[in-house]
Structures are given as structure tokens and as C-alpha cells.
């Protein structure tokens, strides 16, 4: 919630700041328009906002993970690290109440620290020391070195009464009491996230270079990515290979249209993820199963795209071609296929996106290699840095695929949207 409020505040203040520095962001013809609210063509993405947006994500990420890439003053308050002290008052049978001090060394998990040495002090209740990891909590057995042990009970912490269920807040953290009367110290957590929930950006990058060099689970990073991409490309290829001719046939023949319409219309809304169990039952968890799944994911999309491409041909073009003497085959080759390319490209972009999502999901379920398997296994060992690295890689590759498809589209279908 706090993070969201900070985000909203940054959003608004960055807007004000950029406006203040840059002034009007619209340029060219759009800058002279007075009606922009409601005119979609006058709305262009503000690139400054995009840059700030990406920066803010990393900034917040770094600030709430105590990233070393950020100067310290930008960090959200971190967990307490160092020596915490509090006093307790104990009572025991046959002696008066006595007070002693506890020193707890709070350390970063992963480091080894020595228990601080303390002077036992006066009285029958002796001073204690212990260690607790940051973001953890620990039982502090204050009674173990005290001289009077019969009926030993702690009644107060820092002068405030304590009993099972009660807690005492100190500047170092919270002290509670277990049902058996043992003190429980929970160091202050601060605002930052623990690395096992959210590692710092540099930890993710470090893990990336690490895995790029040494691999993960018996395969290199490139193998994991390569296997995922290979499945997508092969599945999509066969899906297009069957789907496009099927779509053409459906667009050109009544019989094909009637025969396949119910099948295609039924299969289209079935999410490919729902087919994973069936595909695993039929084809196992090997490559074949995955490729069948991706084939099915791409097939219907490509068939529908090709069908739409054929139906979308302006009838004067077909008539013109016929009256120029073209044969059916020539009309197919020179009119229908090129005319359907824009639709097919749109379909291919959608299909590639769906395939990429489906392959990751299928690998999450079961796989020996693949980027989905990588993050699934990592999550089981709480290796959050690998999970985040995997998600970022999946996003980047998906984005890269889309950029490639758009580039190919621009190259092959330059007339799209210009007719």
C-alpha cells in the first residue's frame, strides 16, 4: 500500500516536473491542435514519461531492497542490524525481583557472527547475550545463566509488564513471550524486502551472469532458452503449415467451411493451457508433447487469420483478375495470398505470443529443460533471484519476438493500413 502511494506520488510529481522542464510535449502538427482530449490521433506516448516510468520501477525496486546501486539516502529504512539491548526484570522463589540486561547481536542472514561477550553484572539475574538474524526472530533464554531458577519468571521488559501474549516494542524491535514464559525477540524489519522475497537488482544481474557462465540444473542458460524457443518455433511452424492452408480452404470452399467451422469455432476458445493435461497423458512430457501443444495453440489462430485474409479480399480485385484472364491458380497465387498477408501477419503475431506463453506454462508443469522449468525449480528452492531473472528473460524474449514479427511485416506488407 505504501509502495503504491509512493508510486502514485512519483507519477504525479514526475508529470509536474517534466511539464515544468520540457513544457508542451506535443510537437509538429499535433502541437497546434486545440482539441486533444478525445482526439486519439493527438495522443502520442510521452517518451519522457516512458523513461521516467522504467527508471522509477528500478528505483523503487532498489530502494526497497537496499540495492548497492543506489545511494543510501534513497533506501527505504532497512532492517535493524547491530547490537540491540533491553532490560528485563525477573522474579524467582525466595529472592527479590532483579534486573539484568540482554544484548542481542542482529546479523545479516548468511554471515556468521560471534555472540557478544557481556559482563554478567551484579545480582542473581545475570546479563545475557545472543544472536538473531535480520528478518528472523529468536527465543532468548534469559533464565539459563541466572542463579535463582526455582519459579523463575520474567515480569517486565524495559520496565513494561510482559506476559504470554503481551509484547513490548523497543527501538530495536519487538519483544514477546512464548506460552512457556520464554522471551522472543523480533528485530525491527524496516521497510525493505528480505532477499528471499525480493532480491536487489544487482543480485539478479549477478545471478544472471552466474547462470550464463555455469548453467542451471545440468544445462546452460542458452540451452534453457534455446529449448523454449525451439519448441515455440517448431510448434508455430507446423501450426502455420497446417493452419494457413486450412484457413484458405475454409475461405474458398463451402464444404471445407462447413466441415471445419464447428471444429475451429469450438477449439478457438479452448485455452491451450487446458490441453496440457491431455497432451501429457497422450504424448508424455517430452518434446513431442510440447510441440503438439504449441501446434494446437498456433493452428486455430492461423486458420482463422488465413480465413479472414481470404474473406477480406475486395471482390473487385478478384473480378479484375478474372477479367484479365487469370486462372484460378493464378488468382490464388497473385491475388488471394498476397491480399491475405496482412491478416496472416496479425495472426502470426498473436500466435507467437500465445505460443510463448503456452510453452512457459507447459514447462512449469513438467520439463527437463526450458526457461519455464528453470523458474519453477528455482521457486521450489526459494531462489527468488532466479525466478525474477527468468521472468525478465521471458518478457524480453516475448518482446523481441513481437519486434521481429513487426519488422518482417513492415518489410513484406508495406501496403498494410495504406489502402
Amino acid at each position, binding site marked *: 500500500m505504501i509502495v503504491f502511494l509512493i508510486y502514485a506520488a512519483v507519477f504525479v510529481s514526475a508529470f509536474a516536473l517534466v511539464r515544468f522542464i520540457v513544457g508542451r510535449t506535443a510537437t509538429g502538427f499535433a502541437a497546434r491542435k486545440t482539441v486533444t482530449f478525445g482526439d486519439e490521433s493527438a495522443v502520442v506516448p510521452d517518451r519522457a514519461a516512458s523513461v521516467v516510468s522504467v527508471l522509477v520501477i528500478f528505483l523503487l525496486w532498489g530502494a526497497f531492497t537496499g540495492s548497492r546501486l543506489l545511494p543510501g539516502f534513497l533506501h527505504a529504512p532497512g532492517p535493524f542490524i547491530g547490537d540491540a539491548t533491553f532490560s528485563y526484570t525477573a522474579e524467582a522463589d525466595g529472592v527479590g525481583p532483579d534486573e539484568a540486561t540482554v544484548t542481542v547481536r542482529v546479523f545479516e542472514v548468511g554471515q556468521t557472527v560471534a555472540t557478544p561477550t557481556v559482563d554478567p553484572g551484579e545480582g542473581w539475574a545475570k546479563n545475557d547475550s545472543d544472536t538473531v538474524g535480520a528478518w528472523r526472530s529468536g527465543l532468548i533464554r534469559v533464565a539459563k545463566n541466572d542463579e535463582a531458577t526455582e519459579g523463575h519468571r520474567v515480569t517486565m521488559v524495559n520496565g513494561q509488564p510482559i506476559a504470554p501474549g503481551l509484547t513490548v516494542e523497543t527501538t530495536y524491535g519487538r519483544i514477546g513471550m512464548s506460552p512457556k514464559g520464554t522471551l522472543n525477540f523480533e528485530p525491527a524489519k524496516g521497510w525493505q524486502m528480505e532477499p528471499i522475497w525480493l532480491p536487489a537488482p544487482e543480485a539478479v544481474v549477478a545471478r544472471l551472469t552466474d547462470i550464463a557462465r555455469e548453467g542451471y540444473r545440468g544445462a546452460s542458460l542458452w540451452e534453457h532458452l534455446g529449448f523454449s524457443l525451439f519448441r515455440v518455433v517448431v510448434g508455430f511452424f507446423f501450426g502455420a503449415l497446417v493452419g494457413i492452408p486450412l484457413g484458405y480452404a475454409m475461405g474458398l470452399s463451402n464444404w471445407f467451411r462447413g466441415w471445419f467451422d464447428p471444429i475451429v469455432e469450438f477449439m478457438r476458445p479452448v485455452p491451450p493451457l487446458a490441453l496440457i493435461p491431455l497432451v501429457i497423458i497422450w504424448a508424455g512430457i517430452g518434446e513431442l508433447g510440447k510441440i503438439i501443444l504449441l501446434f494446437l495453440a498456433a493452428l486455430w489462430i492461423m486458420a482463422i487469420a488465413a480465413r479472414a485474409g481470404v474473406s477480406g479480399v475486395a471482390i473487385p480485385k478478384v*473480378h479484375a483478375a*478474372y*477479367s*484479365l484472364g487469370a486462372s484460378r491458380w493464378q488468382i490464388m497465387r497473385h491475388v488471394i495470398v*498476397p*491480399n491475405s498477408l496482412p491478416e496472416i501477419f496479425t495472426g502470426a503475431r498473436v500466435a507467437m505470443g500465445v505460443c510463448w506463453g503456452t510453452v512457459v506454462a507447459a514447462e512449469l508443469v513438467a520439463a527437463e529443460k526450458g526457461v519455464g522449468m528453470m523458474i519453477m525449480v528455482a521457486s521450489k528452492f526459494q531462489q527468488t533471484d532466479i525466478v525474477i531473472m527468468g521472468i525478465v528473460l521471458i518478457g524480453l524474449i516475448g518482446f523481441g519476438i513481437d519486434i521481429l514479427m513487426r519488422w518482417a511485416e513492415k518489410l513484406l506488407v508495406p501496403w498494410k493500413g495504406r489502402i
Partner: protein
Amino acid sequence: MSGLGIENISMRFDLPNGRAVQALSDVSLHLSRGELLSVLGPSGCGKTTLLNIIAGFLAPTSGQITLNGHAVTGPDAERGMVFQQGALFEWMSVRENVSFGPRMAGRRARDWAGTVDHLLDVVGLKDFHDKAVYELSGGMQQRVALARCLANDPDVILMDEPLGALDALTREKMQGLVLRLWKETGKTIILITHSVEEALLLGERLLVMAPRPGRIHSEYRLPFADMGVNADLREVKKHPDFAARRDEILGMIWDMEEEIMGRPETASETAGTAGV
């Protein structure tokens, strides 16, 4: 028997709701080689249906089309077609569009290259051979469509409102071009138009059709097309006969439109609906 014969053509469309529309009723006409016929009529008079039947895209319910003695059964390169718009192939350059017919017929580039270049010069697209068609203006696109049709050397050219989508100035220029091409090539041309002026200017013969059912209302032989070949079209329009003809035909079409709008059946249908 040379020329284009339109013999007792009738066309009835059966609608899915059981009713039928009589689009054409017993239309007969003969065009000799090299004649330019313009066809006028209110919307729904079946002129485009007639053109599609001649082109071979539709089979008439009865009657037949003959060209130079043989019956027309489907589309063929002997009957070229120029559409109002949207019939060019955007994935081809101007030159590829114009050479489409010869290329589909399997003729080699050296056989058609000269004709195609010449035609592109004639329609005024000398410097646009390699341009993409979507980069051209509407008027230029229609020039490409004309050249493409001529490059295939058809016996008959069917034009379905070829200038309908152009602005007034471009349209005037294109009318001159159509007349010139007609004289130079000696093609038989059927031109459908909504503009009475255009029909008068270009049509050596003029057919006025009447709707419901589509039929020939009246036919004229006009001198203006011949006058226009050697004179400025604007001068032709100033000719007293031209104005008289225009008013006569406009009045005729107006009457037909009014007849449609105020038909007693329509009135009674409305009344019936209101009663329900």
C-alpha cells in the same frame, strides 16, 4: 455476327425470405464493334447487374450474351473491366499491375514491355512505373486501372462508374482521356455512370434504364462524343443541344425517382404497419 449481343436478358434474385427481386426484365441490345455506350438510370435499375452479366460474373436467369458470335459463359480476357476503385493490386508496382494480363497469359516480357510502357505514357504515368499503387492519388490509380485493362487488349471494355470516386477537376480530365483512348483504340466500351453530363459527353449511344423491374427505358444516339474528340469538353457542354438533352434526361430520371418514392404500394405498406 460481330459485336456484342445482349439477347433477352432477365435476372431474378430469389431472396432467402422467399421473395424474389426482378433485377432485369427482357433487356435486349446490340453493340457494334467500336461503339461507346453509356448507361444511366436511378439506383436499383439493374445497370451494375447488367454489366456483371456481360462480364460473366453473373449468369442471367434467361437470355444470353454473345460476343462476336459465341456465347458468354464466364469472365474472360476478351471482356476487360474497370471498377470504381479498389481493384488494383497493392502488392504490385504500377508496371506490374499494368502488365498483369499479359504476364498471366504467359507472354514474355519483351513481348509486352513496349505496349505497357506506351500505355503508361498515354495515360500520363510516364514517371510512375515503379511506384507502389498505394502511393498514387485516386485519379492516378484510375489511370493505372485503364492502362491495365488496355494492356490486355480486350474486345470490350466494361466500366462500372470508373470516375465516380474522383473529384470534379480530375474527373473532367479523365473524361477527356477516356474519349481519346476510345478513339485511338477503337474498343467497344460500355460505361455506367451516375452523372448525366458524363453520359452525354462520352456516350455515342446512351441508354436510360428504368427500375423495378430493370429495363430499357429509352435510347439515344448522341453527337457529343464525336465533337469531344476534337474539342474541349467544356465547349461541348455549352452546345445548346447538350443543355436540352441534359434537361430532358434529368427530368426523366427525376420522374422515375419520384415514382419509386411515392409508389402507392409503399404508402399502403406504411399505413398497414401503422395500423398494427
